[in-house]
Structures are given as C-alpha cells and as structure tokens.
C-alpha cells in the first residue's frame, strides 16, 4: 500500500478502519448508557467489547447494527457514515444472545432467510446455504425446526444464518452465554477458527474476561458507558490502564497511598497480578530487579492446581498471591496460615495505574 502513488490512493495508509465509532453517545431518558465512545475496529480483526453488565457494550453493538439510534456521534462502516441508515441497509449481521431463530421456519429456511429477502437467485441461494450449513456442521439438521435443536445446535444455526450473508462485519452479542462450560470452550475455538478462515471482522460483546482474552485480537474494556482501555489481550492484562481494568480483567492487587509509598517509594497506586508474585521466606533477600514486601499469611485457599494466599502486608493493605502447587500438597499449604513471609515480584510486573474517576488519570503521567 505504501508504494502506491498518493494521488490514486485517497484512503489512509494505515490498515483500513472497518468500523469507527466517533463520540458515540446513547441516553435512555435520564440514563446514560453510552457516554461518548471513540473506537476503531480494523479490517479482519476479532475485536471484543468487555465489561460488566450495564456498561454500555451491548448498546454500542446495537447502535452499530442499527437497532438503536445514537443520541450523538457517528458510526462509520468501511468509510461510510451509516449513523442514519436503517438496520436492513447496513452490511453487518448480528448473532443474538437468545439466537432469535425464527421458530416457524426450518433450519434451512432460517439460514436462507437473509438471501431470500435480498432477492438472491435460487441457484446461488442453494449454493451459499449449503456451504453455510456444511461449515457449521448442520447438513443433517436442515429440516428440523429450532425447537427441536439443542442449545449448541441453535447457536450454530444463528451463526450460519448470519455468515451466509457474507457481511463486512459480524456482531456477536454474548453468543455463548447460554451454553455450558465445555460447549462454550469448544465454541470459542470454533468461532475463532471461523473468523480466521473467513478473515471477517468480528465484534464480540462479552462480560467474560477469559473469553475476551482467549479469542480477541484486540479488545476494549468498558465501564459505565466509557472505554477504559483498548489494546491486545496481553496489553490489557499485563498493563491495565486503570484500576477498573486491573480489577475486572483477571484478579488483581491494587496498592495505593502509604502501602505503595513504603514498598515502591511513590504514593501512586500500583497493580500487580497475583500469579506474578512469589512467596518466599521472611529472611530471603531480594534481587536487584525485584520489589519485596513483608507480611503474614492470613488466608489460604487450596484450588487443586494452585493455591491462593491472602497476605496481610506490614505496610498496610493485602495482596492475593497465586502459587502453583509444584511440590506442595494440600496438607502443606494449609499449614502456611499465620506464617511470616516475604513477597517478591519483578519490578516490571507492577504497574502504576489511575484509580477510579477521570481526574485521577493525571497521575498516570508521573
């Protein structure tokens, strides 16, 4: 792209933004659902919107789909402002949380629906429906009605019905929420591989951080109608930008004020992941690139593969520590309660964060 002459290439040279949200706002009466969101989703990307319920992620998705009119702001889809367009004129398709399969139609007719209403010819319809059914392994179920399918099968019909239209962007609204754990994990892998095979842009709404972390290329963490952080799963997990992100994505420890001052020498809040902390004996010395803190084990939870320790620090506050049970048995770990320990972590694993609220974000600069 860079080698093309600028005159013939009016598009920006950066990987094209497939979906761009500009200052998107949505209010329902007095309730602010989305309070100004700016986002760019790139072409062919698996992008997740992660956040607790009521954070505005689903409202964002519904505005992209065209089910809700934004109160303010723009939605740009593949370079075209679609903010005022009705849903049926947008080149996106949605997989609904409750699947929203048409109960009076067979699996085949459900999948064919989008092609029929767009007036696509019989021969092409047959080919594309066949492909979609095969891809989702539904060939033998095509004459069934949705009521005769299991949850996982309905999920696959919902996907086939959306994918058969070959949309530019596929919107998924917590599509795996109703499935049990095993099926959910299998579908995560399947979804990801479908997305890669079709190199289609996916926008995936979920409140499950594990889902977002395992499947996304990039993700946005949302809270109270705002985007707290955008980045790759590793970035978001390793370097949470705010205390909300630190707390919501993975378990996290936040130390602030006096405790932070005593340990790091600064008053700024820091966060460190429980699995990055090593539990050592009180006498042990720290390495050059390490930070350490003394404390007493207050609680021990044996979780099989690992143990969760809650350590009360001498400096104030407490840290949760996860340790793999490499050589320990459940008997050993339970005896750790009340023991004096020293906690170690690599300096680069603790991170200065902004605490709750916008005004404190300034601290990040320091």
């Amino acid at each position, binding site marked *: 792209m860079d080698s093309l002459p600028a005159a013939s290439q009016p598009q920006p040279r950066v990987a094209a933004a497939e979906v761009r949200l500009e200052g998107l706002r949505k209010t329902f009466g007095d309730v602010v659902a989305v309070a100004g969101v700016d986002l760019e989703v790139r072409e062919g990307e698996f992008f997740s919107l992660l956040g607790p319920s009521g954070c505005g992620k689903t409202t964002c998705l519904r505005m992209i789909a065209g089910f809700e009119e934004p109160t303010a702001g723009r939605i740009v889809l593949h370079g075209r402002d679609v903010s005022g367009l009705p849903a049926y004129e947008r080149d996106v*398709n949605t997989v609904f*949380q409750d699947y929203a399969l*048409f109960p*009076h139609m067979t699996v085949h007719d459900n999948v064919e*629906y*989008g092609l029929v209403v*767009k007036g696509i010819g019989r021969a092409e319809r047959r080919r594309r429906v066949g492909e979609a059914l095969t891809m989702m392994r539904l060939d033998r179920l095509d004459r069934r009605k949705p009521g005769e399918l299991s949850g996982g099968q309905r999920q696959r019909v919902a996907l086939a*019905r*959306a994918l058969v*239209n070959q949309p530019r962007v596929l919107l998924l609204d917590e599509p795996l929420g109703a499935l049990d754990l095993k099926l959910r994990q299998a579908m995560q892998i399947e979804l990801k591989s479908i997305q890669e095979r079709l190199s289609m842009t996916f926008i995936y709404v979920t409140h499950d951080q594990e889902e977002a972390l395992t499947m996304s290329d990039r993700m946005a963490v949302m809270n109270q109608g705002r985007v707290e952080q955008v980045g790759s799963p590793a970035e978001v997990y390793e370097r949470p930008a705010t205390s909300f992100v630190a707390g919501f994505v993975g378990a996290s420890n936040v130390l602030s004020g006096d405790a932070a001052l005593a340990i790091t020498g600064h008053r700024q809040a820091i966060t460190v992941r429980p699995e990055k902390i090593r539990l050592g004996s009180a006498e042990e010395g720290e390495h050059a690139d390490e930070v350490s803190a003394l404390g007493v084990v207050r609680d021990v939870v044996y979780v099989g593969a690992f143990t969760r320790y809650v350590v009360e620090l001498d400096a104030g506050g407490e840290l949760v520590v996860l340790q793999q049970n490499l050589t320990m048995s459940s008997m050993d770990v339970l005896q750790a309660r009340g023991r004096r320990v020293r906690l170690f972590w690599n300096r680069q694993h603790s991170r200065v964060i902004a605490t709750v609220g916008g005004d404190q974000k300034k601290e990040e600069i320091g």
Partner: protein
Amino acid sequence: MAETLTRTGERLAAPPPSAVRRLRHAIGRVLYRIPAARLALLLGPILLWMVVIYLGSLGLLFVTSFWRQDSVTGAIVQNWGLTNYQFLVQEGVYRTIAIRTVGIALAVTVTDIALAIPIAYYAARIASPRVRTLLLLSIVLPLWSSYLVRVYAWRTILSGDGVLNWSLHHVHLGSVNLGFSRWSLWIVFSYLWLPYVTLPVYAALERIPNSLIEASTDLGARWRTTFRRVILPIAFPGIVAGSIFAFSLTLGDYIAPDLVGDTEFIGNVIYQNVGIANNIPFAAAYAIVPALVMGVYLLIARQLKAFEAL
C-alpha cells in the same frame, strides 16, 4: 402432637380425632396415592357439564332433526326420516338465508381481523405500558355493558333520523340509508365482536420476542417483509382463534338482524320455528347447518396448522 398446653400450663390429652377428621385423612391418603382419583376430582364436574349436558343436548338436537311435525295437527311425530332436510334443500329461501348468514359472518370476520391487527400490534409492541393498559381496557370496556344496549346504541346511530344522518345533514353531505340493511348488520357485528378478535391477536403478537423482529431487519428485510414472513406466521394461530369467535358469534346471532337488519339469519328462522310454529324438528335440522359450517371452519383452521402453536 397428642398433648396440648392450656394457658395455665396444664397438660391436656388431645381429644381422639373425630370421625370426620379420620375420613378426611383417609380421603387425602387415597388422593395422594392414586393420580387418577385426583384427576377425576379436578376435571369431573366440568367434564360432566361438557359431555353430558352440552354434547348430550347437541346429540338430542341431531336426533330431533330427523323427526317431523304433523302438518295438520302440528304435533311432533317421532318418525325417522329426511323430510326436514329435503325441505331445506328444496326451498330456495332457506338456502339463501344460510348463504347470507355465512357471507355476512365471513365479511365480519375479515373486517375484525383487519381492524384488530393494527390495534393489537400497537398495544403489544409499540405502546408504553400505561397506554397499553388504557387501550386494552377500552377494548374490553364495551363487554361490560349489555349486548342489547350496544345494539340499540347502533340503532340510534344508524337509523334514518339517527345521529349519523343528523351529522351528515349538518355538514351538508346529504344522507345515507344505512339503518336496517345488510351494511348496518355488517357494521354492528364487526363492532360487537371486535374485542373477541383483538384480545387473542394481541396475546399472539405480544409473545413474539423483539429480537426476532430485529433479526429479520438485520438480515435485510424491510418492515413489510418482516411483517409478512415473521410476524404474521407466528401470530397466525392467534388470528385464527380470534376469527373463530367473530365467525361463530355472527353465525349464531338472531337479535341484531331483528334490531338493525332488514334480513333474516339462520338464527331467526330457528327462533320462529321453535317459538311460533313449534316445529322443533325443522328448527333442529336447520340448526345443524351452522354446526356443520363451523365444523368445516375448524377443520380448515386445523389444516392451516392454526392449533399447533396453541
């Protein structure tokens, strides 16, 4: 259990359970063990009503239709024969009345469906909860007043010097002659049965999840397509249920034709034969006609799979 404490703390031996109490316990245990007994208690009375009284009298009606009235004495002769049915087929007037009744019933049914769908759709899917309550209340409100009152009200509106012509005259639009005609029957019946059609249609529309309509739009369908391919098929059983009310109620009515119509319905003929001519066998035979028509109507409804989603 066997002892109770009095207020002063004295212990008293509980009196031995009375005979009534023991009987109740015994019945309770039998009901607990035998599901069929519970079912019999639950459905017995209503089944007695439905099967014995309702179906029984329908059977009697059918039997009576094969008897005949002696033309000289007017007495009922319990001779088996098809005289009444022959008479029905041969006399053109009865065929005309039957066709007219069914025709107006169909017109009323179609009209009510056409009126009910938009009202029900608005109430079920668009209106705010408060407006919805008001709307549903105003739909059922007419049912709280007497049928006769409602028909007479229409009589006053539609008659030659009634409210309608008075208004038309005052805005210089001439006058219409709607009172005592088939048009007035059509209008009055459509008004009378509208609540019975609106409510099942409302219930059917209200059950459709919003996401289905969104999914249809999302897949590229405009509103009309969504209505035709998603909303209407799903609400269809409710629409048919409502239509059965409008159709059967019109089919059986004989008061409105008397009060606002200029023609006779099947019901009027039956009424005259029962009350005036005392020709009960002929009335019974003619009553079989609407029963048959209704049977055919229900069969068609079943054929259209209208009962599957109930």
